[in-house]
């Protein structure tokens, strides 16, 4: 199954399982979503549970808060993550905080789905990797699947979670990522990283689309440089699997963190700081970051060298291994 098919399949299963699950957003019902992630839901579950909203992100998230307080389980879609800015006051100021500001009376079991990520020559504001923005909103969980199987297992867990989840889907991987997805119930717990590949010399830490980049880099490192690189897919940034990070770095003594977002104050910085605090004495070399640059996401003709690629990760890994380049 492709990653977007896995999302679609999981939305069907979760809506089947729980009559309180609602799906709404721009073009999600009749059109089945601009990427077909919600295709078929309207026919199967009807217009009371699958709703095309007016074109206004603020009200999409704001109503999710109210619906959740009344016991529904909203799974709103933001068509592209760059348009979450229009809803930022509702996401950061309200959705994240309802449990806290109502002193525990109301929870917000809302899963906000949105695609993001570069490499497909989209117009402005369709590609930005904004994950760190949401990590800075205590109360939100931040989940980013990299495989189709994880898309299913993590989405099901997100929908069943009592707290709001930003579920960020790799746009480029919607159809490119394809793997075996368990048919029946499949839950991947939030807060458990996935050791995609084990290695002894260096740990490549990534999430979302960059996991594939890290895997390619690990293959090159093994084949061409005799370097054994492990790949750790964080899967969820909040909650963060600190234990898995520490264990991997204690094993290899070296790490490279790969992400798409602008470098300054990106989530990679949080990972590096965590390693420094929790595994400093295991380090054989400074931890390296490979990521986007501190610029707005570039236009089509320029994006090629913005998004990290395997060659950059390989170079960084060789550097931390003290092997030139």
């Amino acid at each position, binding site marked *: 199954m492709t990653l977007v098919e896995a999302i679609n399949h999981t939305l069907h299963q979760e809506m089947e399982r729980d009559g309180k699950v609602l799906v709404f957003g721009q073009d999600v019902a*009749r059109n089945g979503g*601009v990427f077909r992630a919600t295709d078929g839901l309207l026919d199967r579950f009807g217009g009371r549970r699958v709703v095309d909203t007016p074109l206004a992100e603020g009200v999409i998230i704001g109503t999710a808060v109210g619906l959740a307080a009344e016991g529904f389980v909203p799974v709103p879609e933001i068509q592209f993550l760059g348009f979450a800015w*229009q809803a930022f006051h509702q996401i950061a100021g309200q959705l994240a905080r309802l449990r806290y500001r109502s002193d525990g009376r109301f929870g917000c079991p809302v899963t906000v789905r949105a695609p993001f990520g570069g490499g497909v020559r989209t*117009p402005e504001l369709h590609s930005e990797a904004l994950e760190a923005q949401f990590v800075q909103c205590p109360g939100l969980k931040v989940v980013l699947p990299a495989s189709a199987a994880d898309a299913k297992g993590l989405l099901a867990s997100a929908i069943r979670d009592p707290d709001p989840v930003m579920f960020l889907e790799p746009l480029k991987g919607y159809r490119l990522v394809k793997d075996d997805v368990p048919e029946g119930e499949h839950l991947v717990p939030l807060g458990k990283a996935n050791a995609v590949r084990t290695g002894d010399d260096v740990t490549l830490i990534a999430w979302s689309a960059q996991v594939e980049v890290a895997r390619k880099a690990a293959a090159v490192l093994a084949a061409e440089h005799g370097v054994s690189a492990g790949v750790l897919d964080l899967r969820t940034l909040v909650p963060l699997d600190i234990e898995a990070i520490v264990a991997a770095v204690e094993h290899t003594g070296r790490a490279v963190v790969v992400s798409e977002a602008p470098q300054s104050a990106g989530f990679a910085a949080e990972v590096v700081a965590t390693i420094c605090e929790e595994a400093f004495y295991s380090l054989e070399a400074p931890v390296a970051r490979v990521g986007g*640059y501190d610029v707005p996401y*570039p236009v089509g003709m*320029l994006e090629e060298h913005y998004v990290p690629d395997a060659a950059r990760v390989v*170079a960084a890994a060789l550097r931390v291994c003290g092997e030139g380049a």
Partner: protein
Amino acid sequence: MSLDLELAAAETVYRVLSEDGSALVAEPPDVRDDDVVAVMAEMVKARVANGRFFSLQRQGRAGTYAPIEGQEAVVAGAAAALDPAHDWVLPQYREPVALGRFGPEVLRTYALYQRGHPAGGHFPAPVRVFPVQISLAAQIPHALGLAWAMRLKGEPGVACVFFGDGASSEGDFYEAANFAGVLGAPVLFLCVNNGWAISTPLHSQTAATSFAAKAAAFGFPGVRVDGNDALAMISVVAAARERAVTGGGPTLIEAVTFRMGPHTTADDPKRYQAPEERAGWEGRDPILRLRRHLEGRGLWSAERQAEAEALAAAEIDAAWDRAEAMTVSPDAFFDHVYAEPTPRMVTQRAELRARLGLDPDPGTGTGTGTGA
């Protein structure tokens, strides 16, 4: 002023030409024949450009394209009533191919935009056109800011902002319109009601009887105009402009039209639109409509049409060839983030240049990264 906006009801659609262009049903705008002929030529050009950008996208040479087909009169008609030397236009994304009145640079820049070149965001001064807007409705408050500034400076212009029926649902529209009413600022809110926002039809967007009707709540006039009638567009925009520059405040103009193409080259309307709906609009083509009117007056002909199409094709080809020939340094995304880059950006840029085997010094004044 030939039209009283206060009297034009928000519920009826104002039109000058009958739907097939064969008759005048209201007083035509007070403009020279040459200007109307120029609008006709501009619409023809927009239609030719539309076909060209569509096929360039299909060939993989240009990016996702949002077609203007069917909406040419909204833009070319409105532009004809504006003053390119004093007014600002803020487009959404379909409009640039029909904004030739604001200078040939508009189309040339738009070709760069479709190519994915950074200079595509840069309608060069003194062209008073804001960059294409992708974040829906975000340009509406900017229009109010421009209008407010012009008034503070005692300048005679207006800001005319285009936005879709879909975009009108965003808070940015309501917030800007409300504030514009309070300020009495010279803004023309031009809502392009083309029936659809991707797959979302009007009735899922609003329960109001019209978009123009919303103006009542902001305290200024709202008019519905037939957006497929170039003469009606000229009349209404001219009247709204006159009102704005004489201190009468904003107007909300709802141009009723239809998106004849898909939302973009990435969309398939068969999934959500009944074919009869589009078919019903075929007989209301804005170009055929004005053409019939002008031919009836001896101002247009088959020869002139062929000539206009050939001129349009030449202009677009030149714009595209120039865009394709325009190179860009692969590190140009570091330009224009700030007036001066931060120290970290300087380091990042040097790292990228080293990686690409470029001279470590990006030089000064790489400008828009046009390689020029």
